[in-house]
């Protein structure tokens, strides 16, 4: 035990997420298993069963049902947490669009896992980005510590009068979900000061307060009013995040920003990244610097609302920027790249050279050599991109499978 009951323990990303919910004194967890998230709900189930957590854990029948139960419980005044991943997030997406409109606060973890087809286990961000337009606040974690901290911050954002929206905290499957890192667990009393018990600012369901919620509406103008309310609430979350993160930093000594610059000040080459692979990016930046190349990195922590101004400010005057999308929108390319371009378009001081990079799909590693390739392509103005991180070794590996499958043609890749 350290100061104020603070202690440091080794936790997997999944356990750190469960700890976040436990420290938030969550009342209710409706759950449905999916790899690689399952350890989170298993841990919470045990804590509710043992009495370490007070409230209720309910095994649900699908993510669709799970999110409906989560949001309805939040609308009934409980502090709610849940977790999902990949196809599960997609299966619940209809409900997520619905309940962001209910304007109910709850927090859930999404453990990123690439989407079918082909079905696979390891991460990329097509799952979490598929939920980018449904009105959730999204925080993307790089480390196990961030997972826990973002869940605590998540409740502060979700429950704030100006927001009242569900918050998604993303962590990469395998790379974070099953990786043990030292995590500082703050003391109970300090946590309660930062995150007091849930006091709903919206009316909740109970006998003395009959209310109709989520009623139908007719007329595009009337509909627009409600949608704009949601939009303003989501936008407000950036400010609320900054305020809560400021207080969090003062209390716990860990400082978070919507975007995190890494060795950016004099950088000539910038990698824009998010989630756990940012750690690989930072390591590559250090090695490039050792070799005399002025590299830097911008990590996106708050992905929704999209901190366009913070992104543009951070990239101001940086000559060459590569946006590494760990996702692919077939027929378009990377999903985040156009959002960054839009944030920069009307800025005089925007980077002159922007490159879209698509890599890390299905957990495919992004290695030092890949970062070298990115730097080299950034230097070649004739290369318009996107750069797809699928090299000779990937190709050879796949061709070995093709030979077993009895195919003789060359693998066809961009």
């Amino acid at each position, binding site marked *: 035990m350290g100061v104020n009951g603070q202690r440091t323990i080794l936790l997997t990303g999944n356990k750190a997420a469960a700890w976040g919910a436990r420290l938030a004194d969550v*009342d*209710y967890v*409706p759950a449905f298993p999916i790899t690689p998230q399952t350890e989170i709900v298993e841990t919470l189930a045990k804590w509710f069963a043992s009495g370490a957590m*007070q*409230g*209720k854990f*309910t*095994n*649900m*029948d*699908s993510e*669709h*049902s*799970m999110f*409906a*139960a*989560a*949001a*309805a*419980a*939040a*609308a*009934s*005044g*409980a502090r*709610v947490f849940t977790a999902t991943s990949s196809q599960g997030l997609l299966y619940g997406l*209809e*409900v997520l669009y*619905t309940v962001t409109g209910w304007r109910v606060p709850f927090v859930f973890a999404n453990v990123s896992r690439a989407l079918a087809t082909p079905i696979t286990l390891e991460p990329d961000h097509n799952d979490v980005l598929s939920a980018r337009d449904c009105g959730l606040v999204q925080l993307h974690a790089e480390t196990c510590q961030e997972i826990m901290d973002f869940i605590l911050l998540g409740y502060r954002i979700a429950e704030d009068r100006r927001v009242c929206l569900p918050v998604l905290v993303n962590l990469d499957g395998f790379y974070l979900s099953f990786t043990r890192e030292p995590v500082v667990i703050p003391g109970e009393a300090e946590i309660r000061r930062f995150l007091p*018990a849930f006091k709903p600012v919206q009316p909740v*369901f*109970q*006998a*003395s*307060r*009959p*209310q*109709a*919620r*989520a*009623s*139908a*509406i*007719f007329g595009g103008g*009337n509909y627009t009013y409600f949608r704009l309310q949601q939009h303003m609430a989501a936008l407000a979350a950036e400010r609320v995040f900054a305020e809560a993160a400021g207080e969090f930093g003062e209390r716990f000594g860990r400082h978070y920003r919507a975007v995190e610059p890494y060795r950016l000040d004099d950088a000539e080459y910038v990698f824009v990244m998010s989630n756990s692979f940012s750690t690989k990016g930072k390591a590559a930046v250090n090695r490039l610097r050792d070799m005399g190349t002025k590299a830097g990195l911008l990590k996106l922590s708050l992905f929704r609302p999209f901190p366009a101004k913070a992104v543009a400010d951070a990239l101001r005057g940086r000559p060459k920027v590569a946006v590494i999308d760990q996702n692919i929108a077939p027929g378009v390319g990377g999903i985040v790249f156009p959002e960054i371009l839009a944030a920069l378009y009307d800025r005089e001081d925007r980077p002159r050279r922007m490159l879209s990079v698509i890599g890390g799909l299905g957990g495919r590693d992004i290695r030092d050599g890949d970062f070298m390739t990115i730097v080299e392509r950034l230097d070649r103005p004739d290369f318009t991109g996107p750069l797809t991180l699928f090299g000779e070794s990937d190709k050879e590996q796949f061709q070995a499978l093709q030979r077993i499958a009895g195919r003789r043609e060359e693998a066809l890749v961009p």
Partner: protein
Amino acid sequence: MTAIPGRTFKKVKELSPAEWIAPGSPLCAGCGGLEGLRIAEKVLGENVIYVNAAGCLTLLSVFPFSPLRGSWLYTTMSAPAAASQGIRDALDVRMGKHGLPKSEDLQVVVVAGDGSTCDIGLSANSAAIHRGLDFIYFCYDNGGYGNTGFQWSPSSPYGSSTQTTPSVAAHPAGSEMKPKDLFEIWRAHDPVYLATVSPREPIDLSNKFAKAKALKGPRLFICMAACPTGWGFDPKDTNVVARLAVETGIFPLKEYAEGKVVHTKMPRKRLPVEKFLETQKRFRHLFAPERRDDIIAEIQKDVDSYWRLYE
């Protein structure tokens, strides 16, 4: 376990004159589903939250109006039972962990149509019943997707025509499948209470809701929702059509509790099914341009073989 009350009501005038659902909703005139809910509410009274699936009754609450004195939550087409789980659990946790007074508790009532109940929401309502969720499920069954213009649903009767099962030369019956037996599907879950009700039988309906109200656990209702718009009859005849559904034996009034199915109203002498069929446009193709005795006989045969088990 709480004892199941016997008959609470014997005469219509014993029913509460209080109205918990104000008139003037955008629903069709003569809607049997709404009438069923209105009478049920007289028994359920205050402190109710209605959890709704997409369907006709979604139009009960159109911003800024609600005809209900209780609370209302519109969910999605398939999630009302799951949302009910969240509401029930949250209220239980708040009462247990946070000292919310018991007087703040709510009766959770799903309001969903047969399309939601038998199709897209079947898995979620099965799961909620299986979990033993303490709630009431009110399925207003009009045998079709009514709110979207009356397409085929798994509850559409054999021989009825719908927008997506029209009667044509190759498919003279229109709907060729026998409907899903929701009562039996639900009975297999062994809920604490399960009943069919018809607003045309308000005493029977009210007694069943009074029984359900006294119990805890899944209490499930299938309400015959005579539907002037989808079935094709004059709204003023809802009561006639609903009565004929019972008197022909097409819609059995029954309940299931403590392991037994009991018919609460046995038609003394069942009328021929065509007395019911001929009242509605959805069965017109069985009578014109030529009479389809074969299809009518098939419908009669199904009704007869059902009742043979009980008569």
